[in-house]
């Protein structure tokens, strides 16, 4: 296959960093969740403000304009600063975590990202024009500016959603790398777009409830009326199960299996997200919309925190169910392509890695240093040594032969793991690196170079093959 990206054709080595006890996924995930939450607030906020401007213009809500002014200041201070900077931060962080993945994505989608950028410009233009001049403008102009702002903000979701959804379900693009639009409007594109749109509306209306409670000079009845207006936006939450089930129906069978109990962590996070959404939805539909209850600032803040939890759980699941890929069937999480595995099994995965292992004096011999290099290249994107998802915790009770066999047959041990991509010597080096750590990092450590061991390693590697693991129960679905 002719690759559109150099990162898919050749193995490219980068100076990979160590985040200490934090696994890299926590870094990108943490920032990502925060950014997504703020961005969704901004998008929903745009739509909500259009609604309130309409309410103000038509005389349906006497305090709509006052709310708009207060809410918009919050939106500008949060979205225009934190949203914008964390958006850029996502790129920088992606480079730190997986430059290959972001490189592939940029190669493929740079014009769509550039298109999204034109909407950022419109968003900033319309947003600041409203911020500075709304009080001097007539209602028609105010509404027009807000519509521009809301349109631009939602269109940024329109573009980035396709790029994110592509990673899980590249659709027809996988067979034809030039079919950009097939990759963009992929099977999970529309369910995630609609799901996220509803999420935006719910988050913004919850934030609005907090703002309404903080607004000075309003009677409780005024606040209640404004809150009930927000509830109109919030009840769209009832559509979430529809889009969620649609999403679940179109994702790959193995990914679905992780959420449906195949992976305890994935299932748990999915349930946290669903549970939090049910609580918010119950309050919004039964409490606000049907019972027309009042919601005070503390409760609104609590619901916001629940919404953040739901977002965090959902984003964790969305990222997690791609495993073992970062771009499905194209690029493994550790930035190695399926096509490269066989080659690296022959030549060694780090033979050509120009970057030395740091602090080499702390390792007892060259083999352990090589093992550290293999760990850095193949494992460190998802694992640490002793911290989060640490190899010591995962393998601490394994004997050396278990280490050898399990790592050699990694993709069969856990089908969300990519296959081991090194040769028999590198496998042994990695085993010795882990075992040395598990044994308390003694000053001296024997070199393991028994030909029989290496031969056995090779046999296990050959048995495992270079293809990804696949649960037998799902064989028919692929």
């Amino acid at each position: 296959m002719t690759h559109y990206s150099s990162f898919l054709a050749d193995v490219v080595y980068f100076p990979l960093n160590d985040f200490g006890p934090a696994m890299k996924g926590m870094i990108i995930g943490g920032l990502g969740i925060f950014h997504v939450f703020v961005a969704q607030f901004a998008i929903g906020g745009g739509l909500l403000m259009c609604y309130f401007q309409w309410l103000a213009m038509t005389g349906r809500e006497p305090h709509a304009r006052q709310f708009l002014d207060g809410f918009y200041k919050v939106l500008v201070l949060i979205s225009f600063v934190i949203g914008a900077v964390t958006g850029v931060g996502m790129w920088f962080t992606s480079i730190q975590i997986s430059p290959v993945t972001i490189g592939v994505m940029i190669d493929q989608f740079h014009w769509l990202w550039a298109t999204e950028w034109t909407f950022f410009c419109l968003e900033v233009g319309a947003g600041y024009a409203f911020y500075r001049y709304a009080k001097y403008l007539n209602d028609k102009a105010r509404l027009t500016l807000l519509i521009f702002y809301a349109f631009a903000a939602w269109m940024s979701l329109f573009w980035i959603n396709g790029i994110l959804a592509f990673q899980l379900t590249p659709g027809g693009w996988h067979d034809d790398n030039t079919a950009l639009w097939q990759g963009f409007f992929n099977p999970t594109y529309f369910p995630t777009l609609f799901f996220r749109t509803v999420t935006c509306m719910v988050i913004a209306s919850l934030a609005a409830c907090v703002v309404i409670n903080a607004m000075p000079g309003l009677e409780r009845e005024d606040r209640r009326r404004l809150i009930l207006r927000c509830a109109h936006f919030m009840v769209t939450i009832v559509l979430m199960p529809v889009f969620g089930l649609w999403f679940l129906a179109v994702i790959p069978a193995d990914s679905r299996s992780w959420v449906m109990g195949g992976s305890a962590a994935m299932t748990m996070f999915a349930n946290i997200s669903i549970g939090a959404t049910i609580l918010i939805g119950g309050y919004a539909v039964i409490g606000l919309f049907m019972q027309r209850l009042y919601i005070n600032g503390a409760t609104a803040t609590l619901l916001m925190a629940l919404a953040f939890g739901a977002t965090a759980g959902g984003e964790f699941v969305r990222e997690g169910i791609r495993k073992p890929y970062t771009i499905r069937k194209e690029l493994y999480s550790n930035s190695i392509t399926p096509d490269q595995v066989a080659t690296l099994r022959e030549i060694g995965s780090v033979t050509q890695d120009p970057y030395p292992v740091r602090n080499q004096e702390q390792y007892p011999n060259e083999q352990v240093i090589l093992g550290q290099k293999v760990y850095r290249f193949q494992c460190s994107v998802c694992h640490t040594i002793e911290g989060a998802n640490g190899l010591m915790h995962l393998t601490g009770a394994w004997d050396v032969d278990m280490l050898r066999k399990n790592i050699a047959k990694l993709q069969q041990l856990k089908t969300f793991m990519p296959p081991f991509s090194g040769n028999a010597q590198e496998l042994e080096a990695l085993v010795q690196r882990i075992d040395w750590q598990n044994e308390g990092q003694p000053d001296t450590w024997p070199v393991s170079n028994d030909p029989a061991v290496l031969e056995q390693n090779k046999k296990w590697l050959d048995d495992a093959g270079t293809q990804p693991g696949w649960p037998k129960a799902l064989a028919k679905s692929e």
Partner: protein
Amino acid sequence: MNLAAIFPFEYPLPTAFYLFWYVLTLVIHVVFMNYVLGGVTYLGLSSLAGRPNRNELALMLRDWMPFAIGVAITAGVAPLLFIQILYQKAFYTANLLLFHRWMIILPILIIGFYLTYLLKAKKVADWSYPVRVLLGLASFACFAFIAYSWTENYLLSMESQDQWAAFYGSSDIMYDNAAKLPRLGVWFLGAFATMGMLVGWQLWYKDQHENVKLVSILAIIGLFGSAGCAYIYKGMVDAHFPAGPYLYLGIACWGAQLGLWLVQLAKAKFSGMLLTLISVVCPLGIVGMTVVREQVRLAAIDLEPLYPLHKAAMGVAGIVCFLFFFLLNAGLILYIFRLVKKNWIGPEMEAE
């Protein structure tokens, strides 16, 4: 004149194409970034004065700084996109090597951004002197640090694979290069001239001429300082420094700006004619210097292996979509100006 020898035409079409977009979008970013850098520096340094700075220049800068930062960040997204296509490994490697030192620009940018909102608040003038100084200098320090970090990133991206490996092995996160400060000075000090142009228009539009001399002097100091730093920097990267039309364009525009600001200095009011002329030569000068900046990097990086990749990237669909929305959204942004002007109902609305 041999067109094929002129940047970016000396490169294959796809590479030239991306270089064109990169330089174009970078120039737009630089214009707004200069407003921010020059502005926060002026506000920061003027905070050292005993009394709160309430001159027209300071008020204008404080009022518009958050917006300028927002625009500068947004404008910076596009060149950040194109640089990744153009240089790929070199850009990513520099980012990775600087690690925490690089990533810290994000929280610092957020802090600096919020500080400019704070600076804008009227009540700040009532705060005590040390607090005002701290606020002004902290805001300045945030953006100065970001500028410094970009310089470091740029210079590190031009190193060889062996030097990258050695730097990585050393675990250093501060990149030591003597060219850092003069190169930073070229852009930092040059920012005052661009800021002078933009804020000059703002003050002219408001018919505020109290600080015409101050703005002119800041621009002139910036131009001299930038030229001095450029001279030192040239000495340090002489082998890579291209003598060509863009360098001459930069020098010519520098000279023209200097002349125009000197004329402006002698006048009691901002002149629309002078500002118009400055607005022609200043962006052209930035174009010249931006291309020279890129030529220095291109001389250090072997781009040839990347030619096929640029070609492949150019073959990816989506450019028609981009151009369509680029024009549409540019049109909508222009329409916003008209919308605001046409539907202005004046201060009486505020009174209501």
